[in-house]
């Protein structure tokens, strides 16, 4: 193991370092001056609306596309000067999990294992292991173009992990899977994550909370937010909010009108008896409202805390960015 360098209070080995990465297609800027580092053991979720630059960033890290500007270093190897070394370290599931349709699952994995440099018993052992891990036993001898979408995705996943890579990059790994398969793939990612870097892109936000230790939200090729899923949730307007359901009509607004900590009262449904109380940023309402409801004998049927919503925060930051871009386009047109 290479020596790391101190980062805050612990020693962190930065496996992936992306600095000032820009990728342009003709006049379109897909990735715009992106910089971040990922350390060993992190599972990084890449979030963003469609066309945000997630896939392009992944394609640059894996060496499929050359960056217009900036550099990518994986475990000390620069992708521009030493692409083979970087590609050997990475396992990659491209978007849509492409694989050769005329090959059987076994032939395909055999091919990948050989390209990854395995031969003989070692090769057989690794193929067997991924077949077990991803549960492909039943489709070993079927050609890939006859497989269902879920199986194709798993074949793609199997080829990505066959060499036990230090860095695993998965572009929408659970897209098109049923809930059981999704759960299984997430479990697999969690198991794999221990001594690796995993970067997954997704637009399913619950997935980020479920498997990622860190999330980066990007839109229009730029980083809008970077933190643990919990931290990002905490920035949501719903963080610290409470949900309250009443048994009969009651003027909640009047009862809470004087409270400086309540920012807004939202109706949760059409019944007129279920409300979400949003706090002023940084405040928690649970204890306070609970006390008030007891003292005031409110007709409460149900009362609980609302978790911060990643989805809400995601919409908040990405829509702001969209507004900003709309503004920029209109000013450009004027000018």
């Amino acid at each position, binding site marked *: 193991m290479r020596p790391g360098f101190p980062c805050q209070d612990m020693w962190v080995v930065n496996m992936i370092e992306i600095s000032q990465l820009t990728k342009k*297609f003709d006049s379109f800027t897909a990735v715009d001056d992106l910089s971040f580092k990922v350390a060993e053991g992190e599972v990084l979720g890449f979030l963003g609306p469609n066309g945000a630059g997630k896939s392009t960033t992944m*394609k640059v890290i*894996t*060496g*499929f*596309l050359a960056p217009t500007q900036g550099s990518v270093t994986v475990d000390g190897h620069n992708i521009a000067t030493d692409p*083979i*070394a970087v*590609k*050997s370290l*990475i396992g*990659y599931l*491209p*978007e*849509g999990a*492409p*694989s*050769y*349709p*005329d*090959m059987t699952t076994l*032939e395909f994995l055999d*091919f*990948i294992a*050989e*390209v*990854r*440099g395995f*031969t003989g018993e070692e090769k057989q052992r690794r193929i067997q292991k991924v077949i077990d891990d991803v549960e492909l036993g039943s489709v070993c001898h079927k050609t890939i173009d006859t497989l269902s979408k879920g199986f194709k995705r798993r074949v793609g996943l199997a*080829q990505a992990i066959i060499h036990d890579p230090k860095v695993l990059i998965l572009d929408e790994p659970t897209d098109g899977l049923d809930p059981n398969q999704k759960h299984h793939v997430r479990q697999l990612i969690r198991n794999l994550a221990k001594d690796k870097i995993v970067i997954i892109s997704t637009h399913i936000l619950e997935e980020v909370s479920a498997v990622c230790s860190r999330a980066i939200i990007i839109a229009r090729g730029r980083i809008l937010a970077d933190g643990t899923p919990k931290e990002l949730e905490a920035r949501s307007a719903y963080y610290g909010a409470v949900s309250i359901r009443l048994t009969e009509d009651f003027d909640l607004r009047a009862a809470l009108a004087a409270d400086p900590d309540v920012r807004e009262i939202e109706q949760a449904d059409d019944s007129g008896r279920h409300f979400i109380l949003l706090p002023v940023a940084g405040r928690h309402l649970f204890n306070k409202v609970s006390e008030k409801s007891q003292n005031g004998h409110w007709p409460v049927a149900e009362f609980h805390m609302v978790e911060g919503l990643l989805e809400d925060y995601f919409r908040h930051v990405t829509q702001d960015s969209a507004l900003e871009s709309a503004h920029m386009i209109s000013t450009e047109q004027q000018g």
Partner: protein
Amino acid sequence: MNKMQIIFARELAGYFATPLAYVFIVIFLVMSGIFTFDMGAFYERGQADLMPFFNFHPWLYLFMIPAIAMSLWADERKTGTIELLMTLPVKLSDAVLGKFLAAWVLCGVALLLTFPIWITVNYLGDPDNGVIVAAYLGSWLMAGGFLSIGSCMSAMTRNSVIAFILTVAICFVFVACGTEIVLNAFAWAPQFLVDAIAALSFLTHFDSISKGVLDIRDILFFIVFIASWLFASAIVIEIKKAN
């Protein structure tokens, strides 16, 4: 096995995993039979050689080879597997060469399977087998030339039909520029220009090899020709893979 061999083996197995290889070989054999016996008047000539067989090869290849070459890279782009291949620890040159060689070996197999015609001519008469071996070699080299053009055209597009048409068109230029008709049309031009045009043609080089003249310059022509087009393929793939 090195990376190039692994890709070569996968591609070659791929041809035989689908009906493609068999259809290609059968049609190739049928067509070369028709050309030789019917149009080439193999029996009527009354000569113990394979000239009628080999003379039609450039025209046979003009349609058969682009059919194999068209999917070399276009299909990788279409199915997205190019992203998989280019992110594996494989050099681009290994991928280009491996794919090309697999297709070239397929052509070689089809060519070798024409051996009954060689047996026939030996049964009927007493041909110069040295000339025949040279002609087989020349024919295979020429097939490589067609294929290398096809590799480059296939890299240009994700649509294999477009790749096919482009390959046929360019191959036609390289065949036709050695014919009497084209060269006569350049009668006004200085001799060196006519010679240069003729020297670019497959026909010129193939004719001399198939007559049993194994001139190193003819062999070099095909090797340099193949290498140049494969190099161009690699550049095209590098430029176009993102789109």
